[in-house]
Structure formats: C-alpha cells, structure tokens
C-alpha cells in the first residue's frame, strides 16, 4: 500500500524493493533468497510472490518490517499464502459444487 504519492513502482522496481527489504533484515543471506514475482499489477499494487518454503518466515518478516519506498511511507499486507498457486485464485470456502 502506498498512500497516494507519486510514481508507482513497476515490476522490476517492486522486486528490487522486496530484495532490499530482505537485505536490510536478513543481510546478504536474505538477499540471496530466491524470490520470484509471478504476477504484478501496477494499478492495484498487488503481486504474487513465490519463495521456497523454508524462506517464508524470512520473507514475511522482511515485508512486514519494510516501511519506506523512496522516502515515502508504505506497508505490505499479505492477503493469502498457500503452497498451491491454484488456491490463490479463489476462496475455497465459497466454492459451489454442482
């Protein structure tokens, strides 16, 4: 979330932001964690990230503690995590089976 402000980051800048958050909290080891940005929407500023399961704690903690993007306040909200990509597409509790 970026409260108003100016330019929105594009996909590469978004990835750079994630990696720099990891580098701040977990050092070079964290920055070397293989993180992939699978999709990124500039309009809603939402993305799907992929990370190895042992790195979830590091990634989530780094994203939570990231406060600034180019000297503007920002916040990351994690909406859903799941080991399967398909599960992120819909809410399985509202699934209606015919």
């Amino acid at each position: 979330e970026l409260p108003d402000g100016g330019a929105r980051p594009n996909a590469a800048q978004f990835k750079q932001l994630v990696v720099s958050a990891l580098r701040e909290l977990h050092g070079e080891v964290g920055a070397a964690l293989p993180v992939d940005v699978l999709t990124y929407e500039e309009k809603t500023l939402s993305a799907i990230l992929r990370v190895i399961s042992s790195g979830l704690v590091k990634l989530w903690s780094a994203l939570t503690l990231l406060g600034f993007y180019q000297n503007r306040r920002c916040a990351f909200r994690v909406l859903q995590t799941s080991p399967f990509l398909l599960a992120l597409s819909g809410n399985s509790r509202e699934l209606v089976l015919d």
Partner: protein
Amino acid sequence: MVRFKNRYVLCELLSDDPRCRHCIEDRAVGLAVRDAIGRVHGDYGLACCSISFTVKYLNAYTGTVLLRCRKDSYRLLCSALPFVRFLESRAQRYPCALNTLHVGGTIRTCQKFLIQYNRRQLVMLLQNCTNEEERQCIQKSLLSCSLTEEQSQSGDEEDDDGTE
C-alpha cells in the same frame, strides 16, 4: 532448561602485515566480527548474535581469539567469520583473516584443544624452520612443554619466534 548455554568459538587471526600484530585488541576484533555479522545476516542476525557476544580471550602474539555467543546463534556467527576481511584500529585498516579452530561448550574444552593444537604446531615448526638458532629455541620449548602439564604455558609463548 534453566541455564543459558553458550558456545565458545576458538579462532586464529592470520594477517600478512606484521604491524597488525601490535594493534590487535579485543574491541577492534569484536567490532569487526559484529560488522561482518551485520553485513551477512542483517539486523536480525546482528541482534540475535549480539545477545551474549564477547571476545573472551585474545592473544596478540599467537593471534588466538576466543569468542562467546549463545548456543542458538553460533551457526550465524561461524558462517559470518570468513567475511571478516580487515581490522580497523586507530584509523588504520589491516587486512586479516579468521580461521576457525574449534567450537566448544566451555572455556575449558577450548583451552584443552588449544594446548594440544599448540603442541602440534610446535612440532610442525620444528620440521619447517631453516635457521639453527630458531631450531634450538623451538627444541628447548618443545622439551619444556612435554615434561609436565604446567610447563606447557611457557611452550605456547615460544610460538611467535617461529611465525614471522
């Protein structure tokens, strides 16, 4: 369950610069190690390892350093030691390297290891030294350290005559 367990990491400080030996001090080494941990493991690693981090023992003549840290974070510390590239003291930077010799749970086990290690180093120095006087010196210290346990302390200090 009740007590805090520590790990003591015994390392050897290697450097090409002979001036480095004279300005090794525990604060400089501690700062260099902390800085390396901060670079490699970030804020989280730095805070984790700094809970009970001190330089317990430092021998400037032989370059032996004994560091203490918590048992939960000794792996972070050990993995960051190769990233210590220079010591900074009095606005001078000296390139150096830290070799890990032994990780123990108590100072006593580290000391036992250090005594055996120094004995083996003296034997190797005897084989490698070229000068006749050095040979005599080392032979004398070897003889003195193999007699009784207490004499081995004097054997440790003769080490620096052979190393540069």
